């Protein structure tokens, strides 16, 4: 129990963004309390020993875009951040495979095996995307300026961005425009011809989003994921030793180092709002904590439709939040394995099990998987992004045993007839059957399986509709529109009530960015 009942700031939700915001506020000298509903910290960035001896990266499984300055300013390496490389991506095919690795010669040779043209284009594609990344990064790292009622700092931020856009080369401008508007399939068709290469690359354009690779707008999501590769030597894209929960724990330890109090099993029922001003929170058990400001790390739906009364908010804002698209599109299957899966395309080769395995053989595979979901079913043959954490970090499972993390898409939240235990098992079976097509031994080596449907993601982790990004990363709800116009700068219509979750700019993924920028905004105001 915290010793005091009056704080400078209370953060609702001990996910990685909530903890990041708390750590920054603590670092600036404020007395901060973090309240987490569950018994563990981390939100969706959590590691749990679901089956004895086997540690599951229950939801999120890789670190993609952790901001370098957040790592540095919060001293995260000192508190346990250890990012191990994920060196390759393998796409198993029927009787063949496609592998991309960290070694450019090897990757060239491997792609050339399928298409000489693509192998050479691939070498140009990386630098082009890096250029775009450089062009986009300053946008992501700016607090979205309020275009409607700009303050001086908004004007200067807008000016900076305008100058930034003016500084882009015509090529950068072309790619940027295309990435903002096209589907990932169309965009990649302009570059490549070998379909498994294209479909695998397009897959990052659909992750966490209720779209197919042929849906316009998916190219931007692809770019969002590509950003992780930009600071090459940083290897911001990787696997955290001990799973993503260890990232959250590193941030939590940093926060505690800065004097932050953290309470678990402390579900907040309501934000206390008096005269349009947040003054504290009430827990479900009736305890109340007062504070000068309250910061929600929850998604926009929970933050504004559950934590406060609609009556305390302007009706246009309520409408905007209700329209905010947060459709869950993915599920997660975590397996405890007795041995390694043996992919028939590369039987006995354990080397490539250190990287990602992408079940994305064709556009049609992905698009059909999407079609199932569009009409209210989970995909019979889903897209999957698979990693084997225990191969990268043997500490994740007992010696010789393994854990397998399967990100599965699509699984719609609104499934025909609603999710139930039987549907969950059927969904698990569809996943296993799809894997078995490429690694037939999978069925014989499963010791335990954990299946999370969007409904489970919602009930266990508080992700509305099971959306992993607190709202889709589509253009109409990014930047100055995330989560709603006028309120993209971490403020809300309620005085002293702020937001810092993935539902704010710049969005989802383990980036620390919304938490950091929200805290910096608050420190700037206070």
């Amino acid at each position, binding site marked *: 129990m915290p010793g005091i009942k009056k704080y400078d700031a209370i953060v609702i939700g001990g996910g990685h963004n909530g903890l990041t915001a708390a750590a920054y506020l603590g670092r600036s000298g404020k007395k901060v309390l973090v309240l987490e509903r569950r018994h563990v910290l981390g939100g969706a960035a959590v590691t749990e020993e679901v089956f004895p001896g086997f540690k599951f990266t229950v939801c999120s499984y890789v670190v993609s875009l952790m901001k*370098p300055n957040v790592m540095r300013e919060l001293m995260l*390496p000192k508190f346990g951040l250890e990012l191990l490389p994920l*060196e390759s991506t393998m796409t198993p095919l029927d009787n063949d495979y496609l592998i991309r690795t960290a*070694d450019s010669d090897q990757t060239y040779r491997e792609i050339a095996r399928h298409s000489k043209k693509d192998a050479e284009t691939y070498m140009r594609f990386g630098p082009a995307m890096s250029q775009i990344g450089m062009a986009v990064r300053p946008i992501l790292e700016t607090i979205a300026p309020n275009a409607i009622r700009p303050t001086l700092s908004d004007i200067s931020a807008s000016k900076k961005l305008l100058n930034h856009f003016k500084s882009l080369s015509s090529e950068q401008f072309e790619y940027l425009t295309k990435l903002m508007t096209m589907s990932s399939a169309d965009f990649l068709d302009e570059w490549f011809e070998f379909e498994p290469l294209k479909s695998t690359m397009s897959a990052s354009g659909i992750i966490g989003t209720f779209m197919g690779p042929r849906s316009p707008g998916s190219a931007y999501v692809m770019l969002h994921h590509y950003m992780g590769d930009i600071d090459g*030597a*940083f290897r911001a894209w990787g696997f955290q030793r001990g799973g993503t929960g260890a990232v959250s724990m590193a941030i939590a330890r940093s926060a505690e180092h800065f004097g932050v109090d953290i309470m678990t099993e402390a579900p907040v029922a309501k934000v206390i709002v008096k005269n349009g001003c947040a003054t504290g929170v009430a827990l479900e058990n009736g305890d109340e904590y007062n504070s000068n400001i309250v910061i929600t790390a929850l998604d926009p739906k929970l933050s504004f439709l559950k934590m406060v009364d609609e009556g305390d908010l302007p009706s246009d804002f309520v409408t905007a939040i209700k329209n905010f698209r947060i459709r869950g599109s993915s599920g997660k299957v975590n397996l405890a394995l007795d041995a390694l899966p043996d992919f028939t395309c590369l039987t006995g080769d354990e080397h490539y099990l*250190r990287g990602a395995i992408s079940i994305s053989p064709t556009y049609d595979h992905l698009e059909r998987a999407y079609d199932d979901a569009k009409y209210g079913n989970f995909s019979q043959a889903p897209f999957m992004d698979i990693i084997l954490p225990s191969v990268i970090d*043997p*500490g994740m499972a007992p010696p010789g045993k393994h854990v397998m993390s399967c990100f599965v898409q699509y699984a719609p939240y609104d499934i025909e007839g609603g999710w139930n235990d039987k549907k969950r098992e059927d969904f698990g079976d569809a996943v296993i059957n799809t894997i078995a097509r490429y690694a037939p031994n999978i069925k014989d080596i499963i010791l335990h399986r954990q299946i999370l449907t969007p409904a489970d993601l919602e009930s266990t982790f508080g992700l509305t509709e099971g959306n992993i990004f607190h709202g889709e990363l589509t253009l109409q709800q990014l930047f100055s529109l995330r989560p709603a116009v006028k309120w993209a700068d971490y403020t809300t219509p309620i005085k002293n009530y702020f937001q810092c979750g993935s539902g704010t700019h710049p969005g989802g993924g383990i980036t620390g960015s919304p938490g950091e920028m929200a805290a910096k905004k608050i420190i700037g105001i206070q």
Partner: protein
Amino acid sequence: MIYENKFTANTQLKLSPFFERTSKLNESQEWRRWSGYLAATNYELTHENEYFSIRTKASLLDITPLKKYIIEGPDAQQFLDRLVTRNIGICKVGQVMYTPWCDEYGKVIDDGTVQRLTENKFRITSAEPNLDWIITNSAGMAVTIRDDSYTTAALALQGPNSRAILNVVASDSLDSLKFFWMMETTFGDIPVSISRTGYTGDLGYEIWIDPKDALEVWDLLLEKGGTFGLTPTGLQALDIARIEAGLILLDVDYISSRHAIIETRKSSPYELGLGWAVKLKKEDFIGKAALVDEVSRDPKWSFVGIEIQWPELEKHYRNAGLAPGLPCTAWRTSTPLYKGNNQVGYATSGAWSPLLKRYIALAHVKSECAVEGFQLLFELKVEHIRKLTPAKVVKTPFFDPERKRSCPA
């Protein structure tokens, strides 16, 4: 041997007794020369996984090229005590000491470890051949000196899982073996000596064996260590790890006084951050008089860790329209350090630490600058243009995990 000797002259590079295995595992076929041996630079195409194995799993390195000498006889302790700067008199049987040794002028010749094998028997390791120096200085003492370089093969098993692997392979538990101690045990029926030492600054061991058992030991470790993530590791990964650990390297961070053509190239232990290893209270040892004198005058140079400051480094690259350029491997080119317009030192090796997310280097600086937090300017080339960017003097080791010294409860 799969390597056919086509020359008869004994001038070729030596092949380690592990070469039969390492040569087949070396996917990149990148090799460096190390004391006349072929030593793997990387086994894989990039060194990243090998580096992370040292820090998060376990790494196996062939360190046979180390020079090794056996010193035995009633005067062995007294002789070594005279040779090196540390107090060998307090080194117990089964203990290991890291130490430099100097010439008569107190300038460092080499550094290595001294293992006390029995009351009157020691093994000393070094980077360079030291046999002549050792023999010359043993005149009149009851010791026999034997070059053990080719008669003992050695492996380094480093990383957080190294103890767990040895506990599976060895007939005795390693749980109570303390940092810088050693023990005799067996792998099956193969006798091995294991010292809890290494060049990574992590939990780790070095295994000393008869070369005839080399392949069997290698196979056994890899077979049992596989499930703990044991990874054959080359020198590129090791180089980053040893910089993180703040450990110096002969011919990179300093020059042996025996090869220095000019006086200024020589360094005393104080100038290499090894003052802690000089025991001036000892009765006598080679270089003592000069070192006593140097201490009274305060050494002019110091050896420090520096951290190149990120925000300014990033700015240099941003101005050139680039993402921050970082060395992906450790570098060894002397790099000037300034205070204002004056050069006050030079960095001798550096690396981007993938674990710490810090750009670190080891450097010689004038002693007045060797204060934690002291701001220096580090010379950097961005797109062929020289820039100066701030660097700060920081404590070493840069990375010092508790597991390095701790024993399981």
